[in-house]
């Protein structure tokens, strides 16, 4: 039986998160199909059909799916998904919102945040903020997974030539309505896929000082992240939070500035290849995971670092 992957997109572009989910699916089997549900999202279906390894794309195009409301998309996925061995989605906020609803409709369990595929029914996933790794076996006929994008390489976006089937059955629950959206706009790379991330914590002192982080980030072509304390203090918006309950990142280089290194923050970045910590407290726990630690006042060290790059 084939594996169904739920495409993550904004009605115009297929998000890279989808490509990571495709790679995870390819470790389970080789008959891979993608569902694109959205509104006026024909171009996304075209992009999905070119992804290497995909044999078929399902397109469900309707206003009801325009904002990915789980109340409308879940019954669509559950109905289509009945004929698949596995259903995968990236573990983004969209995937996490949708997949448990699909699971309950199908009366099956769901493995959240899978980081390794051990077999068709056996997976690894972090629990307790990544302080333990569980190996779990799914006992259901249809296996549902959300996959952590940083744990799987992206599949090639080109090379495939899948056929497209349009789904016409409409699921509009009327339970919820989209009202508005405040989407942070930035010219910097996306946090979860950037090769370099510079994050600031409570040590930044205020929102204006984050300009120091931004300048350093721009010099490195990096994305900007933050600790929860920095978000809670109102220095930066919530979509920048890295950690157990924020975004999971695993760049080649992660620079933590004025961040103490609480386990909940480490849960979101400790799989980075190289970690740099700049903190004035030499006892800060962040130094226990940092490859390179610099004990210094960030207000001197960060501008100095920027000027030397």
């Amino acid at each position, binding site marked *: 039986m084939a594996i169904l992957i739920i495409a993550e997109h904004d009605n115009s572009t297929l998000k890279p998160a989808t490509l990571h989910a495709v790679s995870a699916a390819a470790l389970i089997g080789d008959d891979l199909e993608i569902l694109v549900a959205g509104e006026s999202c024909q171009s996304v279906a075209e992009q999905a059909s070119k992804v290497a390894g995909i044999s078929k794309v399902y397109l469900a195009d309707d206003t009801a799916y325009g904002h990915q409301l789980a109340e409308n998309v879940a019954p669509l996925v559950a109905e289509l998904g009945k004929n698949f061995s596995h259903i995968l989605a990236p573990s983004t906020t969209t995937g996490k919102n949708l997949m*448990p609803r699909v699971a309950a409709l199908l009366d099956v369990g769901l493995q959240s945040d899978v980081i390794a595929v051990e077999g068709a029914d056996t997976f690894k996933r972090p629990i307790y903020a990544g302080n333990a790794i569980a190996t779990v076996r799914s006992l259901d006929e249809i296996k549902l997974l959300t996959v952590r994008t940083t744990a799987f390489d992206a599949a090639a976006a080109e090379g495939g030539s899948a056929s497209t089937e349009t789904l016409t059955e409409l699921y509009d629950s009327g*339970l919820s309505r989209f009202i508005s959206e405040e989407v942070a706009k930035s010219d910097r790379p996306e946090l979860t896929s950037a090769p370099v991330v510079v994050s600031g914590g409570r040590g930044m002192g205020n929102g204006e000082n984050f300009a120091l982080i931004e300048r350093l980030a721009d010099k490195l072509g990096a994305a900007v992240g933050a600790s929860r304390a920095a978000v809670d203090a109102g220095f930066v918006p919530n979509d920048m939070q890295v950690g157990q309950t924020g975004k999971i990142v695993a760049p080649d280089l992660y620079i933590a500035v004025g961040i103490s290194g609480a386990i909940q923050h480490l849960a979101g970045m400790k799989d980075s290849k190289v970690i740099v910590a700049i903190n004035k407290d030499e006892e800060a726990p962040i130094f226990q*995971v940092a490859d390179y630690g610099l*004990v210094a006042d960030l207000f001197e060290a960060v501008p*100095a670092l920027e000027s030397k790059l």
Partner: protein
Amino acid sequence: MKVLVAVKRVLDHNVKVRVKSDHSDVDLTNIKMALNPFCEIAVEEAVRLKEAGIATEVVVMSIGPKAVQEQIRTALALGADRGIQIETDTMPESLSVAKLIAKVVEDERPSLIILGKQAIDSDNNQTGQMLAALTGMGQGTFASDVEIQDNEALVTREVDGGLQTVALRLPAIVTSDLRLNEPRYASLPNIMKAKKKPLDVKSAAELGIELRAHTELLKVEPPAERQGGIKVASVEELVDKLKNEAKVI
């Protein structure tokens, strides 16, 4: 309007997690347990709705062995009116939890049901969404703001790109994110009062829900240890290391 809050007993978030030496699970013997932080926020939100005159009653429920009564009492001390414990031998999986909560929803008929967005032990982030499917309700997950207007809940959600606001027809399910509110501390008089508030105990079997296993836990391991690195003495040395040793810039 009645509000139902489901809370989970988990290990305290300040406690260091240890994996059992036989790798069968995490070791929870003699470990400090607490109310899941997201559930604390869920209780606080319900209590605020009551204080604002919007909610008339706040019912708190928890599923698990007798010990979960401790967390129900904590929620009662924070201002919930009465508690329900659904007794099970072990902590059931998310789908079973959702089925049991759905049964209580059927009996209690609340207008709003608030859960935490995730339990910090399983890190599942599933139960609220599953409950919404089982009860056929709308879901406002990862909520950072909730407003009740007419017969709808306006929920602002923390999504990857920023914030999204949706309107849900009541009754509806909300799952709380960290910034929904800052929970209060229970005062000593309220802790005393909580001891006298009603707490109903029912067994899962009494509710007629069959608890099926969907997942088998094969092994629990500690994560790969990260080797601590070195301290550099200056910004110059840092740049040199990043360029010539780590080769990441």
